């Protein structure tokens, strides 16, 4: 491919590339419910196989290979394309395979299912019913993803190409208006115009802070200096969050394009992606995208004949959570210890190598080309007053539809959890939802109707964070949940400032005390006062938010904490040390099976007489409970 040298070249390239995508695009809108097969008159079929990390881990690569084998065997290569896409988001039901043009959505496909899909669907045009998604509400099969609740309420901007295009083929990205925004900026807009559009769109940083992106760009633009840098923060680290990874795996060119636009806007010719080394697939796709972008002339010298030059290099992080904090990230890229420093100076004034640097998160960048091609007003029309556009969430925990979703700002937690997420697993009762990862907090039943945006979540003691959303049911102990997150922060603290290094450790020790039944009312006070001081005094965002899970659970589930320290009870039965195993003498027949299996020799009793458990010896392993055939053992 010869690099493009004029913006007009892109239009012709797009027209050529559009053909391969037209089938997919048409099927989005024009399905009639009929399934298509080569024998029933369909000329061309495309099989989209999810190539995200999650589905790959479930052998989706073997699925593609199997399809290829069968196609080669039957010499049908010319009629059927196998396309490896990025993540579809519906990870709960992966691996996902989609058949175009009838838009059939197969879930939990195994390589062994491939011959059947091939023979019945691709050849004969009959759907394989057993692989279709079953609506839990109606019990009926749903063939088209558009009619699955999980997708119905979503609005995909950042994820617009994920699960739709082949991320390793830049032409498919171009066919979806890719690089049009860059061409537009370079040929028709001044850097100030670009910044003006981003400001107008109301886009706020998706990494957690929610700082207005346009303002950030403006600061970097105005900061004096010949050499400036654009940094993409791909150090995604919240437990359970994987939106950035999915975007890089599913639509890497959107990041490349956005970084080039940012470079043009702020006056930088050098971009860096800081990505954790444990994202090998994302790294591979990103590298492929960068190489292709260079080949097509979207990176390099004199891009599209504009005189603007920009290139991107990749820097690997070792996986420290704190390196997601922008100053720590910059220090890490410089080869220094990954720890934050005081702001100001902000990276926009003195960042990488002391030069003005603009750091944006992956999801933030992914929104940029869409804003510029579809217009800032369009973007600003989505969302709430102060939070515009959409937000991607990684939905996890005790929820039916685990996966990656994108919804307009202002969607309520209830819609996310019940409509998209399909409600709580096994019909259990909703207890809380944790948003914002280890920096966020837990929200309860009463918060379910709050429209999700940056400010509303903050007001309730939680935060947007990077978009982790973990749903909990009545079997979850809120003290243990707080303990889990704090353990993560203690593990991930860089150790620089006192409140985070020692304070969080002491908080964790206090929670340990409570969950092991040794807590006192005094400890609850300690949690609250210490937590507040840590928030008030810690150096960086990590430390300032680390007590949130403790403080928010203390606020919303105080009673549960009190039960732990006052009654030494854990209502969710998660805190082992607080459980008491006992034998109902009326039900026990003295079979001695429990005593024989007890590893701690805590059960005594003569044969054929009721047994008893010595609580001092009992290690609460649950072995007796599992072995008793007479339901004589209870746990309280």
């Amino acid at each position, binding site marked *: 491919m010869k690099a493009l040298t004029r913006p007009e070249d892109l239009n012709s390239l797009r027209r050529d590339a559009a053909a391969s995508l037209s089938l997919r695009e048409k099927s989005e809108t024009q399905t009639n419910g009929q399934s298509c097969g080569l024998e029933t008159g369909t000329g061309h079929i495309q099989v989209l196989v999810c190539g995200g990390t999650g589905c790959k881990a479930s052998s989706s690569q073997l699925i593609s290979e199997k399809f290829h084998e069968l196609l080669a065997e039957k010499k049908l290569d010319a009629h059927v394309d196998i396309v490896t896409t990025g993540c579809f988001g519906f990870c709960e039901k992966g691996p996902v395979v989609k058949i175009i043009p009838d838009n059939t959505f197969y879930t939990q496909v195994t390589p062994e299912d491939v011959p059947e899909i091939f023979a019945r669907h691709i050849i004969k045009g009959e759907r394989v019913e057993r692989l279709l998604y079953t609506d839990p509400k109606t019990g009926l099969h749903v063939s088209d993803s558009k009619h699955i609740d999980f997708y119905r309420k979503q609005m995909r901007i950042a994820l617009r190409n994920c699960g739709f295009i082949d991320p390793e083929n830049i032409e498919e990205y171009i066919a979806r208006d890719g690089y049009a925004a860059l061409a537009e900026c370079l040929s028709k807009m001044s850097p100030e115009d670009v910044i003006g559009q981003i400001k107008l769109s109301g886009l706020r940083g998706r990494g957690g802070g929610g700082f207005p992106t346009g303002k950030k760009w403006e600061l970097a633009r105005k900061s004096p200096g010949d050499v400036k840098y654009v940094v993409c923060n791909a150090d995604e680290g919240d437990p359970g969050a994987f939106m950035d990874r999915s975007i890089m795996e599913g639509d890497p060119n959107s990041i490349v394009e956005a970084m080039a636009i940012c470079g043009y806007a702020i006056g930088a010719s050098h971009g860096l992606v800081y990505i954790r080394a444990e994202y090998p697939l994302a790294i591979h796709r990103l590298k492929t995208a960068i190489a292709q972008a260079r080949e097509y002339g979207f990176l390099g010298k004199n891009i599209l004949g504009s005189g603007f030059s920009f290139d991107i290099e990749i820097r690997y992080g070792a996986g*420290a959570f704190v390196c997601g904090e922008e100053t720590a990230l910059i220090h890490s890229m410089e080869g220094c*210890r990954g*720890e934050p*420093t*005081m702001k*100001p100076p902000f990276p926009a004034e003195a960042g990488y190598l002391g030069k003005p640097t603009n750091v944006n998160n992956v999801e933030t960048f992914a929104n940029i080309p869409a804003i510029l091609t579809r217009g800032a007003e369009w973007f600003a029309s989505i969302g709430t007053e102060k939070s515009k556009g959409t937000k991607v969430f990684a939905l996890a925990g005790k929820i039916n539809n685990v996966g990656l979703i994108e919804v307009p700002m202002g969607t309520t937690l209830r819609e996310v959890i019940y409509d998209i997420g399909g409600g709580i697993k096994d019909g259990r009762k909703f207890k809380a939802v944790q948003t914002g990862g280890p920096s966020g907090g837990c929200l309860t039943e009463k918060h379910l109707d709050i429209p999700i945006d940056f400010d509303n979540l903050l007001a309730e003691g939680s935060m947007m964070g990077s978009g982790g959303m973990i749903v909990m049911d009545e079997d979850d102990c809120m003290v243990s949940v707080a303990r889990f997150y704090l353990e993560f922060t*203690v*593990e*991930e*603290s*860089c*150790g*620089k*400032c*006192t*409140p985070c*290094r*020692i*304070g969080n*450790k*002491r908080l964790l*020790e206090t929670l340990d005390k409570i969950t092991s039944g040794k807590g006192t009312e005094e400890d609850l006070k*300690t949690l609250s*006062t*210490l937590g507040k*001081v840590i*928030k*008030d*005094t*810690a*150096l960086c965002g990590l430390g*300032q938010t680390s007590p949130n899970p403790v403080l928010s659970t203390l606020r919303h589930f105080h009673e549960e904490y009190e039960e732990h320290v006052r009654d030494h009870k854990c209502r969710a039965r998660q805190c082992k040390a607080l459980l008491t195993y006992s034998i109902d003498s009326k039900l026990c027949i003295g079979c001695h099976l429990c005593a024989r299996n007890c590893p701690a020799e805590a059960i005594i009793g003569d044969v054929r007489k009721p047994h008893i458990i010595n609580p001092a010896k009992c290690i609460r392993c649950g072995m007796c409970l599992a072995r008793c055939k007479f339901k004589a053992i209870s746990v309280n």
Partner: protein
Amino acid sequence: MEPRQITLQIDHHFVTVPEGTTILDAAQKIGIDIPTLCHIDLKGTCIRNTPASCRICVVEVEGRKNLAPACATKCSDGMVVRTSTLRVMNARKVVAELILSDHPNECLTCPKAGSCDLQSLALRFNIREMPFNGGELSPRKREYTASIVRNMDKCIFCRRCESVCNEVQTVGALGAIRRGFNTTIAPAFDKMMSESECTYCGQCVAVCPVGALTERDHTNRLVEDLADPEKTVIVQTAPAVRAAIGEEFGLPAGTLATGKMVAALRELGFDYVFDTDFAADLTIMEEGAEMLDRLTRYLGGDKEVRLPILTSCCPAWVNFFEHQFPDMLDIPSTARSPQQMFGSIAKTWWAEKTGIPREKLVVVSIMPCLAKKYECDRDEFKTGGNPDVDYSITTRELARLIKRANISFTLLPDMEFDMPLGASTGAGVIFGATGGVMEAALRTVYELYTGKPLGNVNFQAVRGMAGVRRASVDLDGFELKVGIAHGLGNARHLLEDIRHGRNEYHAIEIMACPGGCIGGGGQPLHHGHSEVLYARANALYKEDAGKTLRKSHENPYIKMLYQEFLGKPMSEKAEQLLHTHYFNKSC
């Protein structure tokens, strides 16, 4: 351009400061003393540590969500700051309590007790209980090197040592390793300091606010030696000690306590009290001769001769170039340090004169320095395993010993050093301040080179506290260019230049510690006040000015030493006893 003046309000007082001033400095300006712990800013030197990490100095800033560290938050126009609200006082106390919860309660036996910044804070914050104690203590190493004791369980992670070791000294021996609660300061890969590039300059010890880094104490050993009737124990005192020891007894910084120090040493039971200044004069004779030799050869067209000549009195500096510049070991002078010259002469010439067998003679040095302890231990300064200087104790250790021996220092009469090794000129005295060695050398080199008497012996251009200073001296038509650097980071710049062939000097003086020996790692703690260093340097120049003899080669006992024993500078005997060689110690 003059910085813009801005006005802010601190605790209801208005204060106007230049833009860029921190809240801490602005508060100080109006007499509000905000407590700090990790922060240090030795103004006028390059010693600075502002990580804003301890969070002791937090204050309330109107309109700001969380508390701001005063040490690193810049003032802005119209800012409203409150430094003593309940919220602030509570936060500071909790932060201090947290630090104490990861700090061993060993104050009673800690060498830093009484001068520990953490202890002072605990007192100031009225901490009477330890609410967070009882938890886990972070795992940290202990190590005894020849000079420095590392007791890292006391480390509060202020990073002052790290800043000094990396930014000021550019040695890079200490840095943060591991993360979170397990973070500690250590050489890379948690090696021992003795296996690292550490130069034992002791600047880390000089800035450590707690007892994590302290000197290797030899006072108990000294007490035993003094009590041994079989042994003759003699002492030499380095020039910088007299200008600082008074501080330990409540005298103002810069008080010259030479006479009282001599009296105290006699009281302690030393058999003879001598002066390292004598050996400093001797150093000038040898180093000066070597310098003249190289210059004469150079001016005679010898292309092989290595210039500039670098001084070699500072043992930390010697360690530094042995570790970091092993390709340039032939540039420094081969002259031993004054401490070692003294030991060598004391255990040969003087011992022979007085008939004391070497094994019964104990030579002790009082030094402002920790590297001197290591230097005593170097094998090349031993004869049959017996060191020329048995051991070195610091100014701080001496002060402790004087207090322990119930000696009322301030009430002591002024006494004189013993002869002959206590005789010195003003040139020897100024060795203790940066530039002093060069000035002393210039006084002698000028006269020896030109054969003319030197009118004004004060070379003002080489004095002062600028990190690198340069001067040129007219030696009868030949312009001698000299340079002075103090602080190893400054030395590194000069050495890198020399390595890359960009040298403008004939001779360079280098001292490892900022300010020279007066700012040594063994001196009374400056607690971040740089005025102390200036006062000490002035004291030395005052002593020099008061001396009748101010040129090393005029010292009558030095003349006697050469006549009776050494012959002339750089004679075979002088080479053997007063010169040394260097080793490649690159890691």
